[in-house]
């Protein structure tokens, strides 16, 4: 029997609906007294990109694999850092600037583990989870190209 105090619940959802950070944090921390640090990362649709002003963003994903891939990285995060909880929510569909796209929550006794795990999860979501962004702007519609800086960010977590 695993004590609820030492458990690390992992929640992964891919959904069209928006998320409520406060509710997700409450779900992660409710009736627990062993959590000292909660880090949240919200990724938001931006209007200002490198090139033309973005008017909307469409997120496509690979159902089934997306959940599996995120689960693998969440499991790796919980094995690498002493975490007390992980929540990952990735939205799919069409978004306007200012709207939420992704949420990563990590809870731990200490802040370093929560910060590092959240960064690790975001770096891998960017480069390895099967999601693709299509941008709409005044100059037309096009698929977002992968950034080398995201590959570099993910590579720093590779164990040698």
């Amino acid at each position: 029997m695993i004590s609820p105090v030492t458990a690390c619940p992992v929640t992964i959802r891919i959904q069209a609906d928006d998320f409520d950070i406060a509710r997700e944090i409450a779900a992660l921390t409710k009736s627990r007294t062993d959590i000292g640090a909660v880090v949240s990362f919200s990724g938001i649709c931006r209007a200002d990109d490198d090139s033309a002003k973005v008017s909307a963003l469409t997120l496509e994903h690979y159902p089934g694999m997306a959940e599996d891939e995120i689960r693998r990285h969440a499991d790796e995060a919980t094995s690498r850092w002493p975490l007390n909880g992980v929540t990952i929510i990735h939205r799919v569909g069409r978004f306007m600037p200012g709207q939420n796209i992704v949420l990563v929550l990590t809870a731990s006794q200490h802040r370093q583990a929560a910060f590092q795990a959240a960064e690790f999860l975001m770096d891998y979501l960017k480069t390895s989870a099967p999601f693709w962004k299509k941008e709409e702007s005044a100059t037309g519609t096009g698929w977002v190209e992968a950034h080398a800086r995201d590959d570099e960010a993910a590579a720093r977590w590779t164990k040698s």
Partner: protein
Amino acid sequence: MKVKYFAWVRERVGKAEETIEPPATVRTVEELIAWLSGRSEAYAYAFEKPKVIRAAIDHAHVKSDAAIAGAREIAFFPPMTGG
């Protein structure tokens, strides 16, 4: 075997998924890409830069030299841009 396409690979191929029966001489992911590319101009366009294309077998990323034997589902897509 089922094949799925995503993002601009899907748009160029013109379909999201299909069932294919490649000949037994097609053993790896890159051989499957070459075989698909020969089917029509749409496929040739989708796979014109094979090194850019990512592949997954049964929901796990694989390299281009991965064997396709036993695969239930193979997917092709551009580099991921989620998060």
